[in-house]
């Protein structure tokens, strides 16, 4: 039998994480909890460099991450002032005055092999009033500010739903830091002055800090944020620019006091003249930000527009962030793996930033590197991350492109721009036959695409012909019954009240 050099391995992989933001500490915590005996993890961060920390809204996947680490939900929510999140409410995207919720969950149930939305589209086209929202438990619960964790019952006819959190990202990193350091990660304060590389392989050998300390490692994880100090600056991995499709390149962010009343269990994304504005309710405050295109709006105007929209007094000076949509062509090059913003950026319209960090960590653990890295591991990692980025990219572009808005230069641009072929064929398939291109790996499966297509007014002209078979009145009665069951299930839920919150 072939014996591998690391079967009884005594050499521990030396991992150096550069950057102490959400990405850095999530990576450190996961490595400490799940790969503790295999590696020595050092994280270097600098207080001089602030953290972006705008990723305040999350996707349900974060729950699996916390569970894997053994972090209790209540502890996490109390520490980060978190609230429950059932989805995102998009306002004024398809046209001014429109709004819809993209929930974590599905619409209705399939009937006779045919997905629910075909029946709804048929009756909608035939004049039946009311949005598809009434058939998604998550949407109805969100609109009524009610929440209870899903507890599937066998005979429950109502569609399933899931949930995520809205939380203070600046408190998440410290929580993870305590967690990671208690499990052997050493955290260092320092600024990188120089990156030492191997002359023959080009791999990074060590980070030299400004005070002269030298951090040697086998694997370097670049969590340096937009700066991409290792993957971008040092290894010069080419940048793939997506700003032609996603023109927003700035954000101004400010928290404000919570308005009175029940805390909304959803994030709001409100379309603005040159971009969109987020509203993320936490237990103790509301996070706000205006994501805009600097080609269409000045920083000062963006700042004023954001401040004018606040529902309570601002709790800080508005902070300006600059970014560009796109990614490094590969996320793992040589012995450098970039996690988070150092590998790429997609605006927070669908709360994907932390998800992308998590996806990279999951893949890193699956391809957990030995002191000597195999190209197979790199290739497997990069293949998985490619699929994630491209699918999310198309989904985000859809939010801008699927609009009839003609009121500003920004919206005219995104409405009329050429989109990637991969997206235009998806949209045409939907328009013609109400079918969603199928993939089984990655984010945003059929219900998500249905939510955004219908929410932004792309109602197909054709649908599955089998949905035309049931008589209209019988179908309507069944739809009414389902909507009533959804309402009843939601009515049995309490009003949204995060643990530790006093809403």
């Amino acid at each position, binding site marked *: 039998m072939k014996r591998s050099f690391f079967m009884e391995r005594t050499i521990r992989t030396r991992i150096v994480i550069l950057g102490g933001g959400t990405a850095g500490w999530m990576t450190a915590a996961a490595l400490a909890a799940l790969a503790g005996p295999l590696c020595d993890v050092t994280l270097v961060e600098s207080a001089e460099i602030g953290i972006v920390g705008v990723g305040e809204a999350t996707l349900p996947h974060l729950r699996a991450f916390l569970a894997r680490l053994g972090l209790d939900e209540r502890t996490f929510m109390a520490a980060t002032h978190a609230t429950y999140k059932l989805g995102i409410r998009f306002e004024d995207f398809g046209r001014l005055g429109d709004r819809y919720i993209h929930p974590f969950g599905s619409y209705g149930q399939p009937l006779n092999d045919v997905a629910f939305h075909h029946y709804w589209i048929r009756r909608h086209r035939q004049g039946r009033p009311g949005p598809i929202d009434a058939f998604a438990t998550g949407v109805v619960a969100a609109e009524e500010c009610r929440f209870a964790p899903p507890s599937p019952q066998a005979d429950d006819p109502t569609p399933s739903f899931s949930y995520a959190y809205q939380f203070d990202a600046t408190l998440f990193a410290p929580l993870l830091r305590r967690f990671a350091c208690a499990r052997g990660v050493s955290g260092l304060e320092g600024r990188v002055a120089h990156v030492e590389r191997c002359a023959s392989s080009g791999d990074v050998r060590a980070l030299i800090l400004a005070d002269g300390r030298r951090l040697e490692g086998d694997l370097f994880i670049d969590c340096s944020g937009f700066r991409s100090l290792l993957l971008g600056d040092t290894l010069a991995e080419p940048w793939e620019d997506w700003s032609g499709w996603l023109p927003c390149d700035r954000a101004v962010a400010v928290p404000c006091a919570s308005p009175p009343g029940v805390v909304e269990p959803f994030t709001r994304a409100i379309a603005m003249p040159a971009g969109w504005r987020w509203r993320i309710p936490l237990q103790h405050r509301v996070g706000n930000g205006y994501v805009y295109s600097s080609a269409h709006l000045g920083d000062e105007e963006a700042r004023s527009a954001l401040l004018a929209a606040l529902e309570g007094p601002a709790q800080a000076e508005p902070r300006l962030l600059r970014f560009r949509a796109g990614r490094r062509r590969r996320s793992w090059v040589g012995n450098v793996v970039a996690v988070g913003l150092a590998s790429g950026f997609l605006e927070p319209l669908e709360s994907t930033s932390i998800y992308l960090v998590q996806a990279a960590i999951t893949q890193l653990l699956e391809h957990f590197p030995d002191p000597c890295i195999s190209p197979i591991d790199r290739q497997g990692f990069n293949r998985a991350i490619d699929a994630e980025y491209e699918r999310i990219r198309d989904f985000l572009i859809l939010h801008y492109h699927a609009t009839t808005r003609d009121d500003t230069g920004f919206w005219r641009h995104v409405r009329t721009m050429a989109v990637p072929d991969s997206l235009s064929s998806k949209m045409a398939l939907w328009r013609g*036959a109400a079918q969603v291109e199928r993939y089984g790996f990655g984010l945003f499966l059929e219900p998500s695409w249905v939510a955004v297509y219908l929410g932004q007014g792309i109602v197909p002209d054709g649908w599955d012909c089998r949905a035309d078979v049931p008589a209209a009145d019988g179908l309507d009665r069944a739809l009414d019954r389902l909507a009533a069951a959804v309402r009843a299930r939601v009515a049995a839920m309490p009003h949204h009240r995060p643990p530790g919150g006093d809403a």
Partner: protein
Amino acid sequence: MSQVRTPLRSVAVVGGGPVAAATALALAGGVPGLSVTLVPAPVAPAALADHWPLLLASAHPTLLRLGAEPAGLIAGGIARRRTATRFADWGVRNTAWRLGDGRTVPLDLPAEQLWVRGTRAGPMPPFHTLVPAAMLPERRAHDDLVDPALWLRPDVWTARLAGTMRAAAVRVSPAPLANVRHAAGSVAGLVLANGMAVAADLYVDATGPDRRLAVAGHHWQPWADVSPVDRLLACPDPYAAPFDGYRAVEDGWLGWWPGWRGFGYRAALTSETRARQLLEATAPAIGPIELVPGRVDALWSGNVLAVGDAAAMPGPLGHFGLTLAFQTIELVLELLPSAAPEPLLQAELNRRFALRADRLRDFVGALHRANGRRHGRFWRSVASAPLPFTLRQTMDHQARRGYLPHFDEDMMAPDAWHSVLLGQECLPEGDAMPVLHVQPDEARSRVLALTGTGPSAAVGAGGAR
């Protein structure tokens, strides 16, 4: 307002075996108002899905569309259960290994990773001892981990389907197909032997490898590199075990299926005379049947949809053809075509079918050559052919740490992939993350306790007979 799509009004399914009948029935039952005509046409012996109908459990839900369910078919003598496939003299060390029709025992850690970890400490029982279905009938198993496949008796089943078709108002043409009128990448109409014409919105080609309705888009992509058998010689055999068997020999493999013994080989390497000697037929043999494993470029081209061996032929090893055919039927019902041409819907259907067929091709490739048997000219020729990129990728990743990369539309479960690769002793060079904290000795004793076997059972896998 009504919709822009015109419902499919009529379909003509051409073929003469279970694949054609099942397609006609599933369409008639699944699409209200659709008029379905079955146009008889003989299917050649090389239509393996029709003549050797085996259905993996994943395709059993489609049986319900045909008014049948596994228990009833077994009780009626139409089907029999298969719980495993046993391979002998396989791979580089003449290994005996099994592929169970079922799941691996659930543990708190992935069983395959724990097994691999245990191999670092000493000899282990074969991986299939962790798959209860593979240990039947010698060792009784928990039923919930066994998902038996079904072998159907083609003649009886075809007769049964004919009866169901009458009840389901599938019209059967009074005369068989004589001619196909083609027009610009499509079929313009069918002419029957009695001179009658049949026209439909959509034509389904279930004529097996003859592909009598093939249009320009149905160009054939051969899979000879990964599914190398191009001749099958078979003879009746009293074989009646609840598992299939394959034994590698220098010129190819001998296979045992209920009532049959077969020999798969390559015409360029082995003469028919030699093949007959190796088969040791005691009764008149059928064949040699000429096979061209592969798939069509586009499942649905013009107004013609292919299904069964007309769409893809995975080859005789494992007899996966009917399962793929049933999955194709489900795909067609999911993305139901309309009467008018719809290029994008067509592209989506073709894309998903191609992913599915190619992934099955990879699985058949892994069965043939995952652990490189080199002795014998057949196996040398197999080992020297290039691997498709996706199979290479799977094997590289498995070899690295035991993980399997994800592929959409894979009809074989990860458990089956693990069985095939670990069964042939493709041992990962390193261990997977979740089991690294388990000492190899401990992993080994956990597996040994679980399988109730000592290492002495390691060679007890048995051959085909």
